[in-house]
């Protein structure tokens, strides 16, 4: 029927299932959260380490082809060690505030804006459960957050493989690097994203949600550094978000040799298993708290 005919048409077609509805919420929210000019600036800023490495790789391949092999495979110790080094650069204690600010700033309005605009009344009058809504919103947060984790990392890996080529025994290492990169990225995204999602659900003000999530992600590190002034213990390091992320990624990448030209910069001293367990547990707890909060939310 032409849209220019003003009339009402009945619908007798198919009705899609639950996953389609969840995916619709996720993709629509992702488009809204990921729009605007400030995003490009933030993205470049947060991905500076990976952008630098990728550009270095491309220029080296064009002007000094021998350097690629010498620096990335010889100097850094292989594609897996190179990838781990890049992740380490992005999430080390000095630079971790960039991805944290990006993830918190872009996702703090995910549920807060819906509460502010009474969208919940529109969503919950549809045939979806509140869990479906929460999962849809969580997926959107994870998708947005992936742009400071595995999306740029994959860009680097693909560039690396295209320029360097893959042959023989290296295939297994390359496949494992891709899987490790995805696993590391997803773990970080799930951990941070779930925390931001929860704080987005507690208030109608997205700014408040953003500030609270940034505080929650930073405060433990600050407290730990203060405690460390008085007590000397390894467990205090588990309060640092940057250190547990690095420890988890280090284990996921199979504890690669990270001696950059003979110097051990990035070897983690924390237990990767404990770090992964902590990140998954905290992520699950915050996700469940978000769902619980949504079930208690009164819809006007």
């Amino acid at each position: 029927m032409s849209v220019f005919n003003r009339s009402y048409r009945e619908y007798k077609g198919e009705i899609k299932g639950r996953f389609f509805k969840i995916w619709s919420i996720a993709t629509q929210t992702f488009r809204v959260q990921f729009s605007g000019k400030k995003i490009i600036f933030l993205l470049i800023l947060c991905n500076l380490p990976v952008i630098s490495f990728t550009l270095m790789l491309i220029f080296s391949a064009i002007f000094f082809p021998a350097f690629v092999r010498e620096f990335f495979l010889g100097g850094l110790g292989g594609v897996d060690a190179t990838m781990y080094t890049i992740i380490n650069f992005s999430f080390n204690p000095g630079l971790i505030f960039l991805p944290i600010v990006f993830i918190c700033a872009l996702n703090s309005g995910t549920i807060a804006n819906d509460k502010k605009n009474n969208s919940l009344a529109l969503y919950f009058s549809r045939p979806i459960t509140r869990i479906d809504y929460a999962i849809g919103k969580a997926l959107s947060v994870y998708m947005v957050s992936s742009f400071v984790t595995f999306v740029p990392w994959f860009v680097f890996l693909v560039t690396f493989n295209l320029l360097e080529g893959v042959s023989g025994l290296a295939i297994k290492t390359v496949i494992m690097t891709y899987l490790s990169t995805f696993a590391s990225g997803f773990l970080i995204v799930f951990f941070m994203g779930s925390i931001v999602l929860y704080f987005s659900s507690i208030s109608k003000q997205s700014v408040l949600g953003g500030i609270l999530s940034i505080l929650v992600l930073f405060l433990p590190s600050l407290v730990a550094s203060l405690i460390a002034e008085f007590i000397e213990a390894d467990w205090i390091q588990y309060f640092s978000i940057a250190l547990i992320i690095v420890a988890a990624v280090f284990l996921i990448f199979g504890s690669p040799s990270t001696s950059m030209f003979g110097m051990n910069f990035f070897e983690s001293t924390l237990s990767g298993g404990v770090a992964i367990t902590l990140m998954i547990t905290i992520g699950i707890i915050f996700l469940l708290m978000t769902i619980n909060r949504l079930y208690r939310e009164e819809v006007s």
Partner: protein
Amino acid sequence: MSSLVHQKEILCVEGITKIFGKKNSPQSIIALDAISFKMNAGANALLGPNGAGKSTLIKILLSYLKADQGEAQLLGHDIFKEGMLIRQKVGYMPEHFAIIPGVNAVKQVSLLGRISGLPKEEAMQRAHETLQYVGLNEARYRKVKEFSTGMLQRLKLAQTLVNDPELIILDEPTNGLDPNGRIDMIELVKEISKEHGINLIVSSHLLPDIEATCEFATIINKGAVVAQGKISELTYQETRSVEKKNMKVEIRGDLERFLAALQTKGIPFQLFENTILVQYSDEEISTVLLKLAYENDIQIRTMVPSEAILEDVFVHRIADMNNKNGLPTKETKIEVSK
């Protein structure tokens, strides 16, 4: 429960109770007090003063809230067990401002269509059609945040229609609209019900709008039903039952003199421009008025008893209930909830 619902009934509520706060506590508020009623297929009005329990009932029907007791079926489905099925078949237009932030009108309606289970292309096509249908064709690509109140009301109506529901629940559909917008909205709602056979439950404070759009009315107060039936029957009963009736009288001649004569006879009246509204309880009033006119050399042009309107039914039934109850403790509590 299934035996309770006949084909022509869209809603069957039995003993639904909802108490806010801790049960048996003095602070608890009884929003719905074992309410039972049925609604027929067609256009139904759900009326009541503030705090009557209308919104609570709608929230329970849409599974936003859980009832403490009772059972109910909407479109033949148990509201407590088949909430998803119900929401698949029902469109809800909330009273308050409700938008999906950051999107334009067509994207909002299309998203809500997809969440209702429509495939992506179909949802987009129907979003365009329903926006055209409600008169928002020109504004389809504008951000909904920029919409005026009237446009937002139309947008909310479009999103209720996108999944072709069997029943639409409209909460104050003419709220905040200017007179022209109100007329347009009433026409749309009437058309949806009469020409497309979609059942309606309309909750509104504007009783003339209800009279214009609905066939049946259910009036609730203090969580209980005070009147129910066809609006025409309710107003007819009201006209017959009231003790003091009104007669609309228009005259040609000396108005001052006629009014003075009415005063002398002790007949109460009110003057609206050239129409005199004479209050009477005696069925012989027309003879009395004709005699008065003859004596004062005045010609009576029209003399018709004025019919009760829905507002009269509403006001009197609620007043009757309050008088009967003599303001018990429960009523005081509900007043607090206002």
